[in-house]
C-alpha cells in the first residue's frame, strides 16, 4: 500500500497525534472559504491599497495557517481572523507610509459588472472610503467593524484587544465624526449643484 496514511492526512487532520505533514489543508481551506470575502473587504476598508490586497489577504491566511494548532475553539473564528487582518492592514498601511489624513483609496477600480447605473454604487463606495479616511485609525477600526462588518461590541473588544468601555467610547466618537463628515459632504455637493 502506498503512503495511505499521508494521503489520508491530506483529507482530514489527525486529532491528537502529531504529524509530519506540514499542512492541514482541510481546515485552512475551510477557514479560508468561510472568511475570505469578509477579510478582503475588511482589509480594503482599513486602507490596504488595491495593488496590495492579494498579498495582504494571503498574509492573513498564512498567519491563520501558522496558528491553526493553537487556536482555541471556544473563541469565535471570525474574531480571530479579523484580529489578524486588523494587524496586517496596519502593517501594510505603515509600509505604504499613509498618513492619517490621506484618503484611504485613490485607486478604487471600477468593479461594476456592467451598465452605467452601477457607477452610482461605485461613487458611493468611493465616498465611503473618503469618509473613512477622515477618521483616525482607532475610530475607523471600530466604525468599520461595527457599522460595516456588524460585529457586536464584545466581538470588537476581542478583535482589538481592548476593553468594552474603550470600544463604546471610540464608537461614539466614530459615529459622530462619520455622521458629520457625511453631512458636510452632502451639503457641499448640494451647494455645487445650485
Amino acid at each position, binding site marked *: 500500500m502506498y503512503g495511505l*496514511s499521508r494521503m489520508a492526512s491530506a483529507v482530514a487532520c489527525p*486529532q491528537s497525534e502529531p504529524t509530519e505533514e506540514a499542512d492541514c489543508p482541510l*481546515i485552512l481551506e475551510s477557514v479560508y472559504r468561510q472568511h*475570505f470575502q469578509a477579510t478582503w473587504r475588511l482589509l480594503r476598508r482599513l486602507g490596504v491599497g488595491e495593488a496590495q490586497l492579494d498579498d495582504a489577504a494571503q498574509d492573513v491566511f498564512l498567519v491563520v495557517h501558522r496558528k491553526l*494548532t493553537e487556536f482555541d475553539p*471556544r473563541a*469565535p473564528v471570525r474574531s480571530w481572523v479579523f484580529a489578524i487582518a486588523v494587524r496586517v492592514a496596519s502593517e501594510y498601511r505603515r509600509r505604504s507610509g499613509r498618513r492619517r489624513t490621506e484618503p484611504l483609496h485613490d485607486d478604487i477600480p471600477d468593479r461594476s459588472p456592467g451598465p452605467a447605473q452601477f457607477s452610482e454604487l461605485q461613487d458611493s463606495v468611493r465616498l465611503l472610503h473618503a469618509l473613512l479616511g477622515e477618521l483616525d485609525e482607532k475610530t475607523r477600526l471600530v466604525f468599520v467593524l461595527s457599522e460595516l462588518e456588524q460585529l457586536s461590541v464584545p466581538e470588537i473588544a476581542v478583535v482589538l484587544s481592548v476593553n468594552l468601555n474603550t470600544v463604546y467610547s471610540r464608537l461614539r466618537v466614530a459615529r459622530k465624526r462619520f*455622521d458629520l463628515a457625511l453631512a458636510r459632504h452632502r451639503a457641499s455637493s448640494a451647494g455645487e449643484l445650485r
Partner: protein
Amino acid sequence: MRAETHSFLEHVRNAEGPTQEDEERVLRALQTSVAAGVLPSVAAAIVAGPAPSRWASLLRGIGAKLGVVAVCASAGLGTGDSARSSVGEVIRSAALAPHPRAQTTPATTDESSQTVTPEPSLASPAAPRVTPHRERLDSKSPRAERRAPTLRDELRLLQEVQAALKRGDGEGALRKLNSHHTADRVLLAERQAARILALCLLGKNDQARRAAAEFSASYPGSVHRQAIANSCASPPRIPGD
C-alpha cells in the same frame, strides 16, 4: 447617527467585495506558499498575536461585565457564522509540524530579531465565550438533539473517517460517510475525497477512478486533488510511457 447616515451605510455595506476570481487566485497563491513553507511577510508580532493570557482575560472580563454565561462552540448556534466557528474545535486538535525557516520572500527585520515568546492560546478552559444575543443550547436539550448536523458534527465525522482510513478500514470509512449528508460545499469536497480513498482501500479501483473524475470536474481547485492523483484513482499508466 442620522437616518441618512444609516441609509448610506445600508447602501454601501455589501457594495464591495472580492470576485470569485479574486478568491480563487489568492487561494492558489496561498496553497503554493503553504506548500513551499513561505512565511507571512508581516511582522512577527502579528504572527504571535495577543499575549497568551490576553484572550482568556478579555473573554472572562467581557463575560463578567455582561453577566452572560458563555456558550461553547459546541452549541452549534443559529447563525451560519457561529455554527462555522466550531471549525475551531478541529483546528485546535490539528497538529502542524513547525515550518522550516527557509522562505522565498525576505523576512522583515522584526522577524529576524524576533524573541521567542510563548505561543498564545486564546482561552483557558474556564474562560467564557460571550454570545449575548444568541440562545444557549444545552447539548442535552430536546431542541439541541433535534437540530441539523452542525459544522462541528461534520468535522468530527471527518476526523473519524480519517482515523478509519489511516488504519486501513475502508469499510468503516464509507459507513461513516454514509451516516449523514451535508449541504456544505467545502465539506462535500472533503467527504468525496475521503470516499475515493476508501474505495481504493477496498480495491474498488474503477469506482474510485469514476469518482475521481467527477471530483476533478466539480472541484478543480481543491487541495485534495494531489492526494487523489497519488491514489489508485489516478488513471493507469500505459506501459512504455
